[in-house]
């Protein structure tokens, strides 16, 4: 904030769509006097306030924590999921990344498994269903051994944490030409396969989560690496390699089919 704030004028082209079965289109809005200290979503707030006061329907978009951790927000901005910032969510993107006179195109995540709800809002419940298929350790509350009973090497804990950082925003799916959720699945499979607590169910987990991913209508991975490039938590595709190993191992050697 030691940099001086300046204001810019931009042209917004935003995807507007009434509902799931309705045809949508890009609408254009001229937006003036935007402080570069604003976040991208605050800029949309300003546009929405203006639309509302002028009797028009505001642009609906999902958002909640506005600090990059809840995973609720997301849109494709100028062709990039979460916009031009690296390692950040849409809510963390600030207007200082844009120049006066820029045209900014804003579209929802597009994937067969993410039907559009309204405007920029999509239904990502498929990601929840994938977790329900096996993204957990089967342990009930009570009866857990002492937290230090099983030592976990620091580098393993760190790797698990790298994977566990996934916020489930769906940017990886939006960026993938196959609309694959492999990065998402691999993050959870990796976290739990790395940790001793997750090992007993590792084989079953890899199989059931991937099966569910297919059933939800996500595509497969073809190593485009687009997911890794847009991931706000910079989750590496080495996790996908680990998932593939877990999957193969499970397919060949596990009792569970």
């Amino acid at each position: 904030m030691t940099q001086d704030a300046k204001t810019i004028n931009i042209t917004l082209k935003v995807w507007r769509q009434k509902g799931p079965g309705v045809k949508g289109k890009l609408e254009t809005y001229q937006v003036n006097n935007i402080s570069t200290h604003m976040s991208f979503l605050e800029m949309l707030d300003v546009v929405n306030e203006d639309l509302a006061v002028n009797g028009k329907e505001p642009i609906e978009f999902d958002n909640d924590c506005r600090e990059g951790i809840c995973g609720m927000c997301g849109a494709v901005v100028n062709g990039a999921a979460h916009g031009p910032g690296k390692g950040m969510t849409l809510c963390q993107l600030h207007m200082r990344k844009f120049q006066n006179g820029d045209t900014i195109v804003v579209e929802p995540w597009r994937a067969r498994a993410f039907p559009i709800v309204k405007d920029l809002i999509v239904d990502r419940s498929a990601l929840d269903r994938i977790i329900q298929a096996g993204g957990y350790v089967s342990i009930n509350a009570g009866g857990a051994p002492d937290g230090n009973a099983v030592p976990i090497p620091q580098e393993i804990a760190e790797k698990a944490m790298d994977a566990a950082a996934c916020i489930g925003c769906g940017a990886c799916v939006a960026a993938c030409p196959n609309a694959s959720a492999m990065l998402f699945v691999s993050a959870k499979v990796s976290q739990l396969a790395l940790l001793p607590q997750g090992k007993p169910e590792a084989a079953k987990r890899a199989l059931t989560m991937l099966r569910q991913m297919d059933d939800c209508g996500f595509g497969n991975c073809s190593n485009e690496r687009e997911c890794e490039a847009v991931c706000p938590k910079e989750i590496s595709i080495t996790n996908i390699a680990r998932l593939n190993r877990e999957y193969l191992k499970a397919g060949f050697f596990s009792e569970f089919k």
Partner: protein
Amino acid sequence: MQLDGKVPGGPLEAKWDRHRFELKLVNPANKRKFNIIVVGTGLAGGSASATLAELGYNVQTFCIQDSPRRAHSIAAQGGINASKNYPNDGDSIRRLFYDTVKGGDFRAREGNIYRLAQVSENIIDQCVAQGVPFAREYGGQLANRSFGGAQVSRTFYARGQTGQQLLLGAYSSLSRQIAVGKVKMYTRREMQELVLVNGQARGIVVRNLINGELESYAADAVVLATGGYGNVFYLSTNAASCNVGAAFKAYRKGAFFANPCYTQIHPTCIPQSGHFQSKLTLMSESLRNDGRVWVPKNKGDKRKPNEIPESERNYYLEIKYPSFGNLVPRDVASRNAKEQCDAGYGVGETGYAVYLDFADAIRRDGKDVIQKKYGNLFDMYANISGDDPYQTPMMIYPASHYAMGGLWVDYNLMSTIPGLFILGEANFSDHGANRLGASALMQGLADGYFILPYTIGGYIAGTSLPRLNTDHAAFKEAAADVKANVERLMSIKGNRTADDLHRELGEIMWNYCGMGRNEEGLSKAVTLIRNLRDEFWQNLLVPGSDQDYNLSLQKAGRVADFLEFGELLAVDALARKESCGSHFNEAYQTEEGEALRDDENFCHVSAWEYKGFGNEPEFHKEPLVFENVKLTQRSYK
């Protein structure tokens, strides 16, 4: 009416054990005959839903977001306390208990806090078993760090994303129960009404946020885990959808609201940068372990921080509180920052910021060590502010963060409405007048994993619960009321949006009910809030329709509740004629400017009973009895 917290008798250490033994049990085969509604899927609601389902109850769980994984617990950064004493530095259940009682400025129940400290250890074990990747030492043992308000290292953490990892742990357990059909999960639903039948909580009415339809759900008990009311200040560290709605609806139906004036203003947030600001981002308190707080010694010093020599810097926390230094509790740190800025020593464009400087830590430990500890926080700061905190000190200022107050509950976490249980931040029970860092996660999970699952069984086993469904007249009436309210909001067609009115409410609350309060200001706030409420009901503008997704309508409903709740907060603050913890009434302070309690007259919980729209609520008291700690003037010097 004098309220009874129903804390069991006997020695402190044995209360919970004794209570668990005395609680009636529901036979395992019978649990499947009972339905429980849980509203909210944060640490408290998520863990409670999963655990109740594991026990065999049928659970219906509701959340406002598109997925139960997004509740705002996810944003907690620093850590979770537990009295494990792994570092061998003298921690114990009793010390965690004592620190929490003292940190809360002796305004919470001994029995509840001791229980919290007891189960803190189980929480860590449970989370490790779920695969929560806590930070580890090289030998593979769990790592600990210190946190504000404590002189031992008892905070467990997963980088700066502890809340996220614990929440994902609870969410994974919840997901497992959803998969086996024991939890029916309803997302994008907002609770609009609590339904009582024969005085018992038996269901809720929710609005489906996708299509606007009102849906009714019946159960044998209702659990609210709907978080705090920090957004009454408009600008806060809370997420956009955090609101007081569910709690306030319960309050209107007869649940008492306790200590609403206890609101925590967190000392380390990124300062506001303009009118458009929609939220304030918290920088974890853990930064105070290595960052040094200072302001220039000269008023209005506009030099860049690096150009101000050591001799012209005032490290006011280290000087004023030599034993705790930068690690004083949050209320103390916040108040001191305000004091410096009000006196003209503040920095930054607005003059409402102080420095948090890592230069010494980087010199001492090297950039790598600091990066490892706080890398994501530094990146977050750089991204929001455009400044690099490795090169120049961070600027921070306090912001509304956490609500210690909440719906009143007894030792069983049951409100004054039978069958209505309140968990986590939504209840008032454990933090007194100020919450210590890393204790919110502990409380949320304690309530959900290890307390409610026992106590709700005691209620169900000991209560006559006639079968009923949503055909009951009480559900029809509740749904009709909700429908009328939605139509009323839609029909005003004025020219101010809910956001605009909320922002104005926030300014009133921050100016008159914030870190420093006085009677004149609080009375003025009451008048201003009432006027704003009139303005709201005459001039609200809700665009769009109530038949599809309409965030403006959702916000309008929430702001309507905040406009009533804000007054309750001010009324409570007016009634508490003392200073304690986060509630600082300028008329009651020591010569050194510290909060001055009045234990003779105010050693109690204030619980308010709703008496109708626009009417003064009725005051009830729960005296606080301290048998194990001596009430002292809190000192962090």
